């Protein structure tokens, strides 16, 4: 369908530009705010042009933090977030690939029961089971640890289900050809199935990484030790820390830095990500 009406083109672009502006403007404001000195926002008017404090603000956040108010330098928090997000991502991928492999390719008793059990946990987000999960994690002594931060979030019905759907589209002859070629179940998984699902894995990697990075409630609950704070909860602590007025310029610098890693992940994996979501050809 090709329409060639000038006003329609203009209208369409107008809408698109408006949409982009609505998404981009808050980010712009955050960036601008992070380049101004401390007092600039208390006056009530928001500056819309960059100020001169860029280096100052960012080096403060990274090296000093607001130690007096109880938030450490954000370098450690960024590192914690990265570790947690990666642990959750790789954990989820490993668990869901293997469970989908088992459900699709092996005949064992109660196979469908297990599938439905996994499937049903789709309906239970972290928040619903957060109190019992906290109890379990506390009893296991995993409060204030990376294990406690990541393991409870690893089980993933969504990823298992997606991989199951993908494995079912792989022609059965592929397995049979591999069997004739002398590949056992694990070799088949490693040599055939994994390379075939690489685009799906990439797509899920992006989604899972962002999911892990953005965890807020769970880390807030189970960490009391500063050395396990993650960046997302760190932002919150910066805003509410102490009695004084929040130091918005530093908060905004932290926000920009916190948004950077997920953005980079998307940028680098964009091509595979789109392929994984759209490609059907095998």
């Amino acid at each position, binding site marked *: 369908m090709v329409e060639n009406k000038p006003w329609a083109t203009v209208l369409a672009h107008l809408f698109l530009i408006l949409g982009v502006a609505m998404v981009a403007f808050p980010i712009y404001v955050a960036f601008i705010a992070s380049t101004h000195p401390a007092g600039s926002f208390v006056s009530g008017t928001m500056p819309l042009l960059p100020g001169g404090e860029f280096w100052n603000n960012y080096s403060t956040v990274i090296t000093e933090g607001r130690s007096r108010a109880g938030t450490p330098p954000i370098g450690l928090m960024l590192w914690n977030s990265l570790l947690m997000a990666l642990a959750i991502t790789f954990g989820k991928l490993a668990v869901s690939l293997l469970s989908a492999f088992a459900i699709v390719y092996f005949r064992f008793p109660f196979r469908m029961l297990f599938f439905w059990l996994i499937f049903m946990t789709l309906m239970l987000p972290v928040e619903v089971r957060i109190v019992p999960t906290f109890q379990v994690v506390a009893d296991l002594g995993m409060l204030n640890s990376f294990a406690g931060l990541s393991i409870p979030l690893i089980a993933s019905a969504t990823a298992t289900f997606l991989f199951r759907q993908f494995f079912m589209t792989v*022609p059965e*002859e*592929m397995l*049979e*050809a*591999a*069997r*004739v*070629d*002398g*590949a056992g179940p694990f*070799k088949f998984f490693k*040599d*055939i199935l994994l*390379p*075939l699902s*690489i685009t799906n894995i990439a797509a899920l990697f992006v989604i899972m990484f962002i999911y892990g990075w953005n965890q807020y409630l769970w880390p807030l609950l189970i960490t009391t030790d500063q050395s396990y704070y993650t960046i997302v909860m760190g932002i919150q602590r910066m805003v509410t820390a102490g009695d004084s007025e929040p130091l918005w310029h530093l908060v905004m610098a932290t926000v920009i830095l916190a948004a950077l890693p997920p953005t980079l992940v998307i940028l680098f994996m964009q091509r595979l990500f789109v392929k994984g979501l759209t490609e059907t*050809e*095998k």
Partner: protein
Amino acid sequence: MATIQLKQLAKTYAGDVHAVKGIDLDIQDGEFIVLVGPSGCGKSTLLRMIAGLEAISSGELHISQKLVNQLEPSERDIAMVFQNYALYPHMTVYNNLAYGLKNRGYNKAEIETRVQQTAKMLEIDAFLARKPKALSGGQRQRVAMGRALVREPSAFLLDEPLSNLDAKLRVQMRVEIKQLQKRLKTTTLYVTHDQLEALTLADRLVVMNQGLVEQVGSPMEVYDRPASLFVAQFIGSPAMNLLPLAALTEHSLWQSHLPDDTDIIGVRPDELLLEQPEQPHIRLACRCSLFEPAGAESHLYLSLNSNGQSICMRVDSDCQVREGDLVTLYVPVSEVHPFNQATGRRTDQA
């Protein structure tokens, strides 16, 4: 090289579905066997049982005198070519060929020589670095063949390997497969539903129907002396004409030439004559309903005056009979295939 013995081999699926109902077959070393039959007759299931992809419900399967019922496909020393080729899409042609060798622990140098040799033989050596996606249908077919050949197995199993190719390529690959098998002398089992492929390729033909073997024999035996009504109709194109005796007038004149329990006769379209022969013959009065030119030959479709039954006849392309003409056809009694309708079997079995 291998002999393959099937002893009462049967496959039963859940729900009492008998896909293969007890088949006995002795395959000699180096033989080219074609399993042929309509879809759903159990020929693919039988092949997959021999390959080890389908469990054997009952009976025994011996490959090279060894009972292999419980062995994995890779332990049976067979190679299989699948209908949709089942090439590994993420591997190059080279790796597709090499994968089976790698899994069997061959060293790099040996894999290299074998793959190069096979690729040269199949003329795919120019594409070794490509992925299957970048190949045409015929090239993919060759790679699939190559994957089977490279291992030098003792038997090849091919499951309708040509059915995804266009007509011209199919004929070409058919010839190549035949030549290849003659050269390598590897025992080969080939499944097809195409009777022409079956006739041209086979040393021996196994015609199957509803999980049972209807007839085993060389292509010409099966064509010249079909053992049952089913085989008679399935092998040969255009199909054999089947005429119930009751529909034929004056059959008393020549019926004494046929076995007593004959009640239906088969006549190949190319055994019908327009001129009266000297030997004892049958006469059929017909009206021509369609003239169908087919290049080197033509087909006449006629309807029998006595009961309107349709008859197909092969004639030269310069035949002058046209739609609407009244024609008398003759069949030498010696060319008639006598059958019994109730048993479905041939009545003059030696």
